[in-house]
């Protein structure tokens, strides 16, 4: 049966809708039980924060609760047309301890826990009410048939406030039972809707919270934008400088050499041969410098083959013996690709230059569930890398922040160093080149 998802949603009428609502009530009751368990688990995780188990358990427990809350939100929307705004996601963080800390500070986590403890009581009651009516009604109908006999065996049986001790009261119980069944069918859709409205009251983020979230996001966007603009200006200036000092200077020198050759042509042809050879060398060198410049802006192999082969090419020319594993089913957008390529390049160069490492491992994976591309660069050097000290790592962080990516560095003294880069992105299916 198709379920409408519009605001002006009106429930169906009649016994069919009632049965549907009863089924839904069952689902909601089951969810209530799951919620109470999840809430208990979360409470346990919080109390064990002191002993150190917390940071490991906390994210998972919070995730559980969040998943149940999301499911309830979805059901409220789908079944009753009650729209519960989803709270914005907090800024991402890599690293388990950071994630745990952010989760604790997030008001959403506490609101959802409050919901997980209170809802099984209130929401559970709402959800279970029609089911209770059904059960009671069935009992009544049953009594209608067997009430007399049972009264005889047990010495009196009760149906609610009606004592069943004879054929008349048994029939009364049966009739009441049928009425209760009918009542259940009528009440069920209404309790489901009431449940959805209750869920909204307790689960939607408050106005103040939403404002705080948005302010934070605006600050983040402003700062990454200004970093991106600065980086771009610096890069343009670098290109200009390289062109001016490199290729341009060489071409000027070449012109002068050719000019000298022109003048010497009559007087000293042998010297001219030497000058021409020199001019040819200058031209070759200028071309070489231009090639290197292009590679520093956007490497051809990255444009042609994509990130996996470009990283393998980096690995080939690195002094470290590098193993590359790439499990990414598709290509990210070119700007993301470029940012990741230069980030990996910088990380690998750092490892080669500063850490005294001999081997490196580059691993890239894509998490479908949250759309994250994760690349780790590990080396077996002496560790001690620090984002706050070197500008290289800070540069990588800024580059990735423009795309809402994060950088995490684990570099204990003595090694090994693991640099993790995470960027949310969508992948396009790999381009097929016909040949």
């Amino acid at each position, binding site marked *: 049966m198709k379920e409408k998802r519009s605001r002006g949603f009106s429930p169906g009428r009649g016994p069919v809708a009632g049965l549907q609502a009863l089924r839904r009530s069952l689902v909601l009751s089951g969810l209530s039980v799951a919620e109470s368990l999840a809430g208990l688990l979360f409470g346990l995780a919080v109390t064990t924060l002191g002993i150190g188990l917390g940071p490991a358990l906390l994210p998972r427990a919070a995730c559980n609760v969040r998943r149940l809350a999301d499911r309830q939100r979805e059901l409220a929307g789908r079944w009753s047309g009650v729209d519960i705004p989803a709270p914005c996601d907090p800024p991402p963080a890599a690293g388990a301890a950071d994630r745990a800390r952010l989760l604790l500070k997030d008001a959403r986590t506490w609101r959802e826990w409050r919901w997980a403890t209170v809802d099984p009581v209130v929401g559970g009651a709402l959800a279970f009410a029609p089911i209770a009516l059904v059960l009671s009604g069935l009992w009544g109908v049953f009594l209608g048939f067997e009430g007399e006999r049972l009264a005889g065996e047990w010495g009196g049986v009760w149906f609610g406030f009606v004592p069943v001790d004879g054929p008349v009261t048994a029939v009364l119980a049966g009739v009441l039972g049928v009425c209760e069944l009918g009542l259940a069918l009528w009440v069920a859709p209404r309790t489901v809707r009431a449940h959805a409205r209750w869920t909204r009251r307790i689960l939607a983020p408050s106005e103040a919270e939403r404002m705080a979230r948005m302010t934070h996001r605006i600050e983040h966007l402003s700062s990454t934008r200004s970093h991106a603009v600065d980086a771009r200006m610096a890069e343009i200036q670098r290109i200009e400088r390289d062109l001016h000092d490199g290729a341009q200077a060489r071409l000027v020198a070449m012109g002068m050499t050719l000019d000298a050759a022109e003048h010497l042509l009559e007087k000293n042809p042998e010297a001219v041969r030497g000058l021409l050879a020199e001019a040819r060398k200058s031209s070759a060198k200028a071309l070489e410098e231009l090639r290197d410049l292009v590679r520093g802006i956007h490497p051809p*192999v990255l444009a042609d083959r994509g990130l996996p082969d470009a990283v393998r090419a980096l690995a*080939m020319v690195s*002094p470290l013996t590098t193993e590359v594993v790439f499990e990414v089913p598709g290509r990210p957008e070119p700007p993301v690709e470029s940012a990741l390529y230069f980030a990996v390049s910088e990380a690998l160069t750092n490892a080669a230059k500063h850490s005294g490492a001999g081997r490196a491992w580059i691993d890239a994976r894509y998490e479908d569930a949250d759309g994250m591309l994760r690349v780790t660069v590990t080396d077996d050097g002496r560790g001690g890398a620090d984002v706050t000290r070197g500008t290289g790592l800070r540069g990588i962080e800024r580059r990735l922040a423009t795309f809402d990516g994060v950088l995490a560095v684990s570099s204990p003294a003595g090694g090994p160093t693991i640099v993790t880069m995470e960027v949310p992105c969508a992948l396009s299916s790999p381009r097929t*080149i016909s040949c």
Partner: protein
Amino acid sequence: MRVVLAEDHFLLRDGLIRLLEAFGHEVAEAVDSGPGLLAALTAHRPDLAVVDVRLPPGFADDGLRAALAARRAVPGLPVLLLSQYVEPLYARELLADGAGAVGYVLKDRVSNGTEFMTTLECVAGGGTVMDPEVVSKLLGSKDRDRGVAALTPREREVLSCLVQGRSNAGIAEALFVTEKAVAKHIGNIFTKLELHACDTDNRRVLAVLAYLER
């Protein structure tokens, strides 16, 4: 020698045809796309294919892929790849099948006609020619490596020439030294890099490159 040419840039294609014919070679067909190249190679079975890495329709590495596909169909088909830039990764892919008769040089080198012809003939004869820039890229980064760091500048020059597939005589001519001196340098290089002596010029190119990109 019968040559098939694949180059999408009109001026360069025309120039290459003239150059080849001036040196007495026959251009069986000149194509300007990847699919066209594959068809021409299968149809003509030339003595040599001169291919630009960047060809339509992809304008990425179509030429390289077409060349690799052709060599899978006709093993050991001599192919000389021309490119605006050299990428050691592509060099590795070309050398992967170990059949030799492959060349990978910068388009800039085409301007020296005689040298270009030597390269062509070397590849057509089964030799391996790699642009010196491939070597310098790989060498430059391996400076930490003990073996490479121990090479003298002269030995690096010899190494550069060696990887272009030249014989000892050719290297001697290029560097203006005697053949005996070249042989001595090569012996030193192989000792320092701890490589076994190789019987053919082709094998020693492969040995050196395999060592460099380890």
